[in-house]
C-alpha cells in the first residue's frame, strides 16, 4: 500500500509503482480501438489534432473500469496532476473538468518517469527561451527562479542562452500547430516539475521513509529457530483450567453489573439521556462525599482502590495513622519513574533513593534484603524499570496486609455509611420536550426487514434515522 520512495542505496525511484500504474492506464486510453476517441479541437483559430474533452476521459474511465463517476473523476484528476494529460485552455489549472474542456495526452518524452529528475539546466534554457522570445513573458515566480538560476549556474550561462536561441530558431521552422503543441507540452511539464508557489508539489517526497520491500518477514532458518524457542517456552507455561477462567468471568460480570451504566442505568440519572450532569458532578475526581457505589467498588480489588484518586487519598490517611504511609508514597514515586519523561528518570530515581531506600532515609521502606541489593545495584545505571522489583514487593505487601485491614477499619466503614446514594432524578414533566429518539430494532427484525426490503433505498444520512422504524 505504501508509496516506495528512497531505496536503501539512496537512488531516487520516486513513486515508481504508482507512476507505472498510471502509465498503463494512459497507454490503454490511447489504444486505437478501445481507447478514447480523439477529435480535433479548435484553439482560437488553430486546429489542434488529437485532443479529447474532460467528459470523454471520465466516461471512458467509468466504462473501462466499471467505477462510479466520483471515482473516475478522482482517478482522472491524478492523471492530470501527474502530468500525463494536460488541459489546453487553462494550462495552469491542473485539474480534470467533466465538461467540454479540451485535454491532450502528454508525450512520453515528458513523462515524470522518463525525465526524472528534471535538470536545472533544462529549466534554465526553458526560462531563457521564454524570456528571449517575449520580454516580460515570465511571471513573478518564474522571474525569481530565472534570477536564482542565473546566479547559481552563471558559469554556463552563455551555453544556456546559446541553446535557447538555437531552440527558438528551430521552432520557427515548424508548423504553427506543431509549435503550439510542443509549447503546451513543455509548459505542462514544467508546471509539474517546478510548480508555482502555493500549488501542491506532487513530486514532494515528504519526510524520509524507508522502503518496505526489504523488511518483510522472511520465513527462513532464523525465523523457524525463533519460532521453536517461542513454542518451547509456551509449552512449558502453566495453564489454568478453563472452568476456573470461565467462572472468573461470570463472577467479574456479576460483581460489576451494578456499575455498568449501559446495562443497569445509573443514579441519579444518565446525563446522556436526561441532559442532567449531576452524575458527573457527584462522581468527580475529588468530591467531599463520594457515592456509595464508588466506595463499594474499592472492595473489589486493590487496583480499584489505587486507581481512584479519592480512594488513594483515603488509604493514605489510614496508613498515616498506622505509620506505614511510606509504602504508598514509595509505590507512587515508582509509578512516576515508570511512566514519566525519559530525561527525568535518573533524577527521579535519585530522589526515590534518598527518600525511601537510603539508610536512615526519612521514609525508609521495608524491602527484603535480596530485592534491596538488586535495586541498589540497578540504581547505578538507572532506567525506567529499575524500581520494578521493589515496587512489586511493596505493592504485594500493601495488598496482603494494609488493604484488607483498611477495608475492615472504622475509617472505611464510616465513609461507607456516610456515602451518598443519589436520588433518581424526576423524569421530565413535559413529554413533548423530550428529544426524538430512534431506538435500535431487535436483531430478528433487522434481518427480517433486510430480507423483505431486498435493495432498500439508502438513507440520506441527514437525520438521526435508524433503519427500521416500523415496530
Amino acid at each position: 500500500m505504501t508509496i516506495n520512495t528512497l531505496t536503501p542505496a539512496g537512488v531516487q525511484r520516486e513513486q515508481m509503482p504508482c507512476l507505472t500504474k498510471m502509465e498503463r492506464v494512459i497507454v490503454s486510453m490511447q489504444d486505437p480501438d478501445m481507447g478514447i476517441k480523439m477529435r480535433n479541437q479548435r484553439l482560437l483559430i488553430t486546429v489542434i489534432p488529437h485532443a479529447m474533452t474532460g467528459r470523454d476521459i471520465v466516461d471512458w474511465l467509468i466504462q473501462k473500469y466499471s467505477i462510479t463517476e466520483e471515482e473516475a473523476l478522482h482517478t482522472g484528476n491524478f492523471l492530470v496532476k501527474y502530468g500525463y494529460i494536460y488541459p489546453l485552455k487553462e494550462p495552469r489549472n491542473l485539474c480534470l473538468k467533466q465538461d467540454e474542456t479540451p485535454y491532450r495526452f502528454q508525450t512520453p518524452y515528458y513523462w515524470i518517469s522518463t525525465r526524472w529528475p528534471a535538470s536545472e539546466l533544462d529549466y534554465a534554457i526553458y526560462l531563457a527561451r521564454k524570456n528571449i522570445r517575449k520580454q516580460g513573458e515570465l511571471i513573478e515566480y518564474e522571474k525569481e527562479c530565472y534570477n536564482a538560476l542565473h546566479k547559481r549556474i552563471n558559469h554556463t550561462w552563455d551555453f544556456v542562452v546559446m541553446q535557447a536561441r538555437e531552440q527558438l530558431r528551430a521552432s520557427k521552422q515548424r508548423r504553427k500547430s506543431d509549435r503550439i503543441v510542443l509549447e503546451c507540452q513543455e509548459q505542462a511539464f514544467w508546471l509539474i516539475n517546478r510548480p508555482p508557489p502555493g500549488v501542491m508539489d506532487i513530486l514532494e517526497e515528504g519526510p524520509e521513509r524507508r522502503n518496505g520491500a526489504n523488511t518483510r518477514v522472511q520465513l527462513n532458518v532464523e525465523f523457524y529457530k525463533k519460532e521453536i524457542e517461542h513454542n518451547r517456552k509456551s509449552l512449558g507455561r502453566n495453564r489454568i483450567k478453563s472452568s476456573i477462567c470461565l467462572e472468573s468471568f461470570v463472577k467479574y460480570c456479576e460483581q460489576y453489573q451494578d456499575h455498568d451504566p449501559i446495562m443497569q442505568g445509573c443514579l441519579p440519572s444518565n446525563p446522556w439521556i436526561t441532559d442532567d450532569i449531576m452524575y458527573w458532578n457527584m462522581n468527580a475526581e475529588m468530591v467531599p462525599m463520594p457515592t456509595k457505589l464508588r466506595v463499594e467498588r474499592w472492595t473489589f480489588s486493590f487496583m480499584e482502590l489505587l486507581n481512584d484518586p479519592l480512594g488513594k487519598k483515603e488509604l493514605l490517611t489510614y496508613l498515616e495513622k498506622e505509620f506505614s504511609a511510606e509504602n504508598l508514597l514509595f509505590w507512587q514515586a515508582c509509578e512516576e519513574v515508570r511512566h514519566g519523561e525519559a530525561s527525568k528518570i535518573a533524577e527521579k530515581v535519585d530522589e526515590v533513593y534518598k527518600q525511601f531506600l537510603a539508610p536512615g532515609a526519612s521514609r525508609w521502606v521495608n524491602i527484603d534484603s535480596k530485592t534491596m541489593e538488586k535495586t541498589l545495584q540497578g540504581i547505578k545505571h538507572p532506567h525506567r524499570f529499575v524500581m520494578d522489583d521493589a515496587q512489586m514487593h511493596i505493592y504485594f505487601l500493601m495488598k496482603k496486609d494494609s488493604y484488607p485491614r483498611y477495608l475492615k477499619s472504622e475509617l472505611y466503614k464510616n465513609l461507607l455509611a456516610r456515602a451518598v446514594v443519589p436520588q433518581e432524578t424526576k423524569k421530565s414533566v413535559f413529554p413533548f420536550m423530550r428529544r426524538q429518539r430512534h431506538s435500535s430494532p431487535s436483531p430478528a427484525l433487522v434481518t427480517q426487514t433486510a430480507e423483505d426490503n431486498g435493495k432498500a433505498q439508502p438513507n440520506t444520512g441527514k437525520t438521526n434515522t435508524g433503519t427500521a422504524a416500523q415496530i
Partner: protein
Amino acid sequence: MGEMEQLRKEAESLKDEITAARKAVQDATLQDTVSGTVVVSRVQLKTRKTLRGHLAKIYAMHWSTDSKLCVSASQDGKLIVWDSYTTNKVNAIPLKSSWVMTCSYAPSGNMVACGGLDNMCSIYNLKAKDGNVKVMRELAAHTGYLSCCRFLSDAEIITSSGDCTCVLWDIETGTQKTVFAGHTGDCMSLAVPLDFKTFISGACDFTAKLWDIREGQCRQTFSGHESDINAIAFFPNGNAVITGSDDATCKLYDLRADQELITYQDSSIMCGVTSIAPSLSGRLILAGYDDFNCNIWDSLKAERVGVLAGHDNRVSCIGVTADGMACCTGSWDSFLKIWN
C-alpha cells in the same frame, strides 16, 4: 534446504504439543458454566448525539479518560477533538497527510496522536501555551502504514504497522525504544491494559500476540481465527482478550488458560468485524461490522442481544467510555454517533 525443513517440522510438532496441552485444561464448556447466569434482557441503545463535521470517511476514534472528550480521524485530513456531550468541536486539527487510519487520546488528555499511509505517527500537543495545536513529534521509522497507536503515558506510545511490527517510542526524543517483531502479517490493531506492563496486537496472520513491554518479547500467541484480525481489546478484568476478525466472528481468548474460550458468531452474519469494545462490566461486547451495523453480544452466553443500526455505511470504529456510560461509533458515512 534440509535444515529449514527440519526446523519447520520441529516448530510444527511443538505447536501440536501446545494444542494438546491446551486441550488438556479444557474441563468445562461455556454452556455449563453460565447455565446459572441470569439472561440479559434485550439491550436497546438509542442514539443520543450525532457528531457532524467530518467531510469524508471516519477511520478511527478514541475516547479520552474523562469520558466526555473524544478524538476522531477522517480521510478529509482532519483530526477533530469533540466535546461529545455538547457536540462542540474543541479542536479541528488539519493533517499533513489525509490518509489517516488511526488516532489516540493520551490518558492525561494533553496529547493526541494519529497516523496512516504516511508511515508516521504524528503527535499533537493540545495544551500548548499559545493555544495553537501544533505537531509535537513525528515518529518515523516504520516501513509500512500505521494501523493503530496507543499512548502509555505522555512519554511513551506504542504503534502497530503494516510492516508487521509494533514499536514502543520515546516521545520526548522521538526514537524507537523497542521493536516487537514476530507477526508474519500486517499488524492491524493493538490494545493496552490498565497496568501498562503488556499489550496485545492482532494481525493479518490470523493471530493475536501478547507482548511484554519491558522485555520486548512475545509471551503468548493466540490463533483460531480464519482471517485477518481487525480489532482487539482487553476484557475489563485484564485476564482475557477479545478479537474481531474478517471471518465474521469475535473470539475471547483467556490469558491464563492460554486459549480461545468463547466464539461469538451467528450464521446470519457473514461480513467482517471492523471494531470491538467491551462494556464496563464486560457482560456486553459491542462489535462493529461491515454491514453498517453494530451487534451487541452477551459475552457470557455468546448470544446477540442487541443491534445498533443507524449508520449508512460501514462502522469503522467503536469505543466505550471509561466510566462505561456511553459508546461511540464512527462510520464511513462521516458521522459519529453516541449511544446509550
